């Protein structure tokens, strides 16, 4: 079954010639991506300068609250945003800028080389067609015409691969006849039908029970082992990222605030927002037992039309220096010292934050932090941080 799946790489008849995939070179490079919508109240900047790379065979986690731009940025990569969205920047996939590509070529990449798994599989699967029909359609859209029976066999194999029991019977059922976890698996089966180079999974586990969540994540990992796809995993849940991702980008108010390997982020978080997210994770060990209650980041995510001046996180930040500089100057992404791989952070107090451990947030740690007068000592490290925004994952971290 598996050999048939991987034996012949599906080929699109008229795909533009893509660069070969080489280890150590990014498959997908996003540079200064901006997505804006015109609204009655003003310009809504859903994504405001996002840059990241995705390398072959890695899992990149993008973490943030709803409205942080994480989903919009990946919809921009897929080319699925409505016409009203103004998308600028560069999205380079295997040597081609997707934003300057004719729609017909982009369509061939979409679902073929770059595929997406959506959050709510019940809404994302068409209610009036069978699961098999919808998977078969994905195959048919990118592979040379094949017999109906062959297509059906492929679809059954895919359902089997994602762990749906009795796939040859299930294939003729409608989405509403599947359970939540099954639907999500079917959705994944559909998205990997053409063995994409990049698989974007947008909150694939959010709508599911915890046990089912684990199963679905496990399916994603298995898929990756088999197909060597790179996976971009979008989630609001740091816990999900911890288990699966190699590298993590934390987003806030449409822009990245911190980015590094998963170990670096978990052991040495620098941005107060990341630290806050970490502190709000429930833990099974006793480290967080100082206080019974979980930490909550105070306040609401900002409006993307009226983003707070300075650091967008400053109104909610326990460590903000107000008003100068946090409420006036917007911090850039800068390189900081790291143990488990390149680490960039957008925070005025990035060096002092090294001393803060998420657990301390349970106690009122914010006020005790000292102000470092001179950060010049580390400025050399920061110099070229933005140019090399995201380097390959160093092996030593994992």
């Amino acid at each position, binding site marked *: 079954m598996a050999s048939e799946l991987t034996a012949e790489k599906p080929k699109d008849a008229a795909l533009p010639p893509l660069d070969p995939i080489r280890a150590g070179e990014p498959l997908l490079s996003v540079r200064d991506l901006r997505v804006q919508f015109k609204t009655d109240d*003003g310009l809504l900047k859903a994504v405001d300068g996002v840059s990241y790379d995705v390398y072959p065979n890695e899992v990149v986690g993008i973490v943030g609250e709803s409205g942080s731009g994480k989903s919009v940025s990946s919809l921009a990569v897929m080319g699925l945003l409505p016409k009203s969205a103004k998308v600028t920047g560069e999205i380079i996939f295997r040597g081609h800028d997707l934003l300057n590509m004719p729609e017909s070529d982009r369509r061939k990449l979409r679902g073929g080389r770059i595929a997406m798994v959506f959050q709510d599989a019940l809404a994302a699967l068409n209610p009036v067609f069978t699961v098999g029909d919808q998977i078969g359609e994905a195959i048919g859209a990118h592979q040379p015409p094949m017999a109906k029976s062959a297509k059906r066999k492929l679809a059954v194999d895919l359902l089997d691969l994602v762990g749906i029991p009795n796939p040859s019977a299930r294939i003729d059922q409608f989405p509403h006849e599947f359970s939540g976890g099954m639907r999500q698996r079917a959705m994944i089966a559909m998205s990997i039908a053409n063995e994409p180079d990049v698989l974007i999974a947008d909150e694939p586990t959010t709508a599911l029970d915890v046990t089912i969540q684990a199963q679905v994540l496990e399916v994603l990992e298995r898929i990756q082992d088999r197909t060597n796809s790179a996976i971009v995993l979008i989630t609001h849940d740091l816990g999900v990222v911890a288990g699966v991702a190699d590298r993590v980008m934390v987003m806030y108010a449409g822009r990245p605030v911190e980015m590094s390997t998963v170990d670096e982020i978990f052991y040495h978080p620098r941005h107060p927002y990341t630290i806050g997210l970490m502190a709000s994770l429930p833990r099974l060990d006793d480290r967080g037992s100082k206080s019974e209650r979980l930490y909550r980041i105070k306040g609401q995510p*900002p409006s993307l039309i009226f983003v707070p*001046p300075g650091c967008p996180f400053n109104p909610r930040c326990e460590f903000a220096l107000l008003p100068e500089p946090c409420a006036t100057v917007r911090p850039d992404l800068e390189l900081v010292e790291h143990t488990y791989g390149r680490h960039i952070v957008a925070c005025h107090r990035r060096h002092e934050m090294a001393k803060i451990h998420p657990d301390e947030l349970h106690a009122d740690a914010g006020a005790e932090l000292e102000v470092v007068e001179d950060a010049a000592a580390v400025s050399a490290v920061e110099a070229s941080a933005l140019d090399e925004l995201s380097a390959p994952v160093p092996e030593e971290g994992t």
Partner: protein
Amino acid sequence: MKTEGEMNLSGATTEDKVVTAAPDLPASEISLAPLQAGANEPPARSQWNLFLRRFRRHKLAVGSLIVLVLLYLAVSFPNLTAPYPRHLPLSLPKGPNGKHWLGTDDLGNDQLTLMIYAAHLSMTIGLLVAIISTVIGTFVGALAGYFGGWVDQVLMRITDLFLVVPALAIIAVAQVGLSNKSLPVVGKISSGTLIVGIVAIVFWMYIARVVRGLFLSLKEKEFIEAARASGASSWRIMFRHILPNTIGPIVVNTTLIVAQAILLESTLSFLGLGIKPPAVSLGSMMSDAEQWVGTHNAYLIYFPGLLLLVIVLCVNFLGDGLRDAFDPQSSKH
């Protein structure tokens, strides 16, 4: 409205320079960082002001309302506005000319004058039908929705009947059966009054169904529970607490009934089942003129129909604007 303009301006300018966002943003309108909240809030806008603002934005509806009001005023005083007396000496029909702008009908009467009288009758019938059916429909619908029970059952069964038997047929049967007869209580009535009564009897059920649905869903809401818990009487809850929240849909549907009633009256009158001479409506004018279709006197068909089209079109535009203003969600397309 002045504050509106200022607000939009400040919104636009701050957008260009995010870093120095002015503190006087409309904090109540969008979720802002807590820092900026409360600095300079615009005065709290009541539902009514919001409604007016949204309605005014709907140019077509505002224009339609103006046209309708002016037109109704004009046709309400035929002594001032009609160019000729209602009845002129008998003569052959003549096409539009300098003396008679819209020509004369087959009895030699001035068509523009006739149309003024006819439009007044048609519009009045539409208005009366809408008002009567809204009053009755709201009352019955409120009772049925709030209390349920037999009122509800009877209402639903009768309205079900109108889903299977064509309303036009029912109205036509009643119209023919009851015209020129002495009725109980009211005695002998004019064809116009009869048509108002009969059409209203059909249309009130439509409003009642709408109001019933609204009451059914609203009576479960928290603020009604709260009113009930505080000991308000059912009567008070129905008409003080729930009814104000149903005004939007009711007004919209009342407007649509005006349009429907005008169309229905014209159709009945055209079929000879509605307005009878000496009264004249736009529909009966066209009924009289049907014989001239295909001849050079066909203008007798075109003008009354055009006026009717303009009236109903304006009412429908108005209804559309009202719907948008009451419920912006409904108009996203």
